[in-house]
């Protein structure tokens, strides 16, 4: 077991202008007495994307819930835009960090537009009506995720994939600096997976949005993430560029199954496939 000592990244020599969007050091946490994470560190700069990968139960969602302020039973250090996470109240945090969980449900028949407008809530008073500017933001978010035609539809009538996109649009309407996405591509077909990552790619480039996403899809992690955090049983087994972390040896150890890692002959992108490699069938 080559456990990576996932120590906090060096910060001493870095210019202050490069305060990371999100930084976590040696986070230990979980539910009540049961620790799920045993000292995980990470850092995401503006415009960067970090993928958190690992088998079921590795602590990926737990880590995301800690970073998003929903889970409070943890120790260690988490900094959001240079300030300690615990120094933000929930509204202040919601103006900076948007979370899209796995469970994208809404009780009652709110329309798609109403759900997206909920992303404006942290910026508004409790009874204030959304201004034309808020509406414009919501409509732009709808357009970006190809949802304009669904705006007036009740959210409950949508398919799982459509709902996922609505909640991503809601996160966008929140105008966050950091987006925490728990399995953003679950329930989505190939085209929408590519679209979602393209949209977040634009947001990263244009607005410096920092993205942290848990992903089961290792190919997506390899293709879109700047860095990958590989978790197993709450421990970082690897942290770094996709090519360094997503090696056949490491993945075999973490997922306890045979894994083939090669390159897409068409694009040269890193490809991860299950099963033992057979040199005769895959020529990379």
């Amino acid at each position, binding site marked *: 077991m080559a456990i*990576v*000592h*996932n*120590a*906090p*990244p*060096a*910060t*001493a*020599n870095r*210019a202050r202008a*490069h305060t990371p969007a999100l930084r976590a*050091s040696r986070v230990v946490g979980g539910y009540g007495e049961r620790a799920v994470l045993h000292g995980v*560190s990470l*850092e995401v*700069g503006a*415009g*960067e994307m970090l993928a958190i990968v690992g088998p079921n139960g590795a602590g990926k969602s737990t880590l995301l819930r800690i970073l998003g*302020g*929903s889970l409070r039973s943890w120790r260690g250090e988490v900094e959001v835009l240079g300030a300690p996470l615990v120094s933000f*109240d*929930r*509204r*202040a945090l919601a103006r900076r*960090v948007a979370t899209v*969980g796995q*469970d994208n*449900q*809404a*009780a*009652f*028949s*709110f329309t*798609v*537009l*109403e*759900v997206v407008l*909920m992303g404006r*809530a*942290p910026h508004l008073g*409790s*009874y*204030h009506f959304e201004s034309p500017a808020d509406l*414009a933001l919501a409509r*732009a978010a709808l*357009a*970006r995720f190809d949802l304009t035609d669904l*705006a*007036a539809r009740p959210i409950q009538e949508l398919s799982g994939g459509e709902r996922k996109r609505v909640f991503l649009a809601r996160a966008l309407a*929140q105008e966050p600096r950091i987006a925490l996405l728990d399995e953003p591509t679950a329930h989505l077909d190939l085209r929408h997976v590519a679209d979602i990552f*393209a949209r977040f790619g*634009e947001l*990263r*480039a244009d607005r410096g949005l920092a993205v942290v996403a848990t992903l089961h899809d290792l190919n997506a992690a390899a293709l879109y993430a*700047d*860095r990958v955090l590989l978790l197993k049983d709450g421990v970082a087994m*690897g*942290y*770094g*560029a996709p090519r360094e972390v997503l090696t056949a040896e490491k993945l075999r150890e973490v997922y306890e199954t045979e894994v083939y890692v090669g390159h897409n002959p068409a694009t040269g992108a890193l490809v991860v496939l299950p099963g033992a490699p057979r040199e005769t069938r895959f020529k990379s």
Partner: protein
Amino acid sequence: MSETAPGVTPNMAPEVAPATARAPARGAGAVSPPPPASGDTLGGAHLTRLKLTLTLGALAMLVLISAIVAVAFGSVHISLVRALRDAHSPDRAIFIGARLPRVLMGAAVGAALAAVGAALQALVRNPLAEGGILGISGGGALGAIVALVAVAGHGGGAFAVPLSAFGAALLSTVMVYRLAVVDGRLEPFTLLLVGVIFNAIWGAAIMLVNSVVNYYYVHDIVFWLMGSLEAPTYAEVAMVAALSLAGLALLVARARDLNLLSLGDEAAGELGVEVDALRRLVFIATSVMIAAAVSVSGIISFVGLIVPHVLRLALGADHRLLLPASFLGGAAFLMLADLVARVAIAPTELPVGAVTALCGGPFFIYMLRREGRGPLAL
């Protein structure tokens, strides 16, 4: 903390550039065009101030018309014209002494119950929640009866009854809610079952009190069990109206947060809602409103179920509109239900609780079946 362990890439600065260079796979030029700013194409898809104003205005008119109809008819025929013109007519005496306070009380109680229903439904993310069904009204009624039997006979009961009703209603709310939360998640069917069980327990406790106290109280106790708007005083009307309005104000002030709660406790928190504080506020506001209603009118069920459900279908789910609309709709509904109670088998008057339960029971079953078809709204 300047150590860098093996396998950890010192990140940031060098990586920002490649990230931005690689990210827009389709190129910045392919970004979806911004939608037209004017776009009224999306009108009706969300709540606007205009829709709020017009809807509440229309519902206020409905309340007014319902009130006029409700005071015009009853178990005895009176002339409204004579009642208003002639200060010494028997019509006037009946109008001022019996009918008007009863109609006003119907409005105040119905408003409170329907707004409470809408708020509780938001809190538990389930359209089947309601003060009566969840056993909260029953708890309030038991509190009122215990106070009546224990204190009222010895003077000073005027405040003891509503206060005791409030305490018991709040206790019921918290107990039902706590028992329905399993592993940190609110289970809708557990909630309904717990509510039904609490209803039965409070009903049994009321019958227990009934069988050990003086016969003198029996009529009062039946009155609480059945739910009736019989013979209220103007002071009672004022008390219920004031507490209902205060409760409504508290709830409406947090209406947007109640909207966010429909996404789940955790998602609401991630959008800036302090969920525990909001929940406490809703418990207190709804308990005050239910206690005020129950202490004068007993257990009137299903108003809080029917009114918000119909209005949600008609107006949408936004609680900024749904809460005040339910308040007004509940007022109109209970005034009319009580009119039915007064005239259906006149000159005998039914308790209004029997009328709402006769409408509400089948309605509840219809909703339960309807909920059962799709994924339960959670």
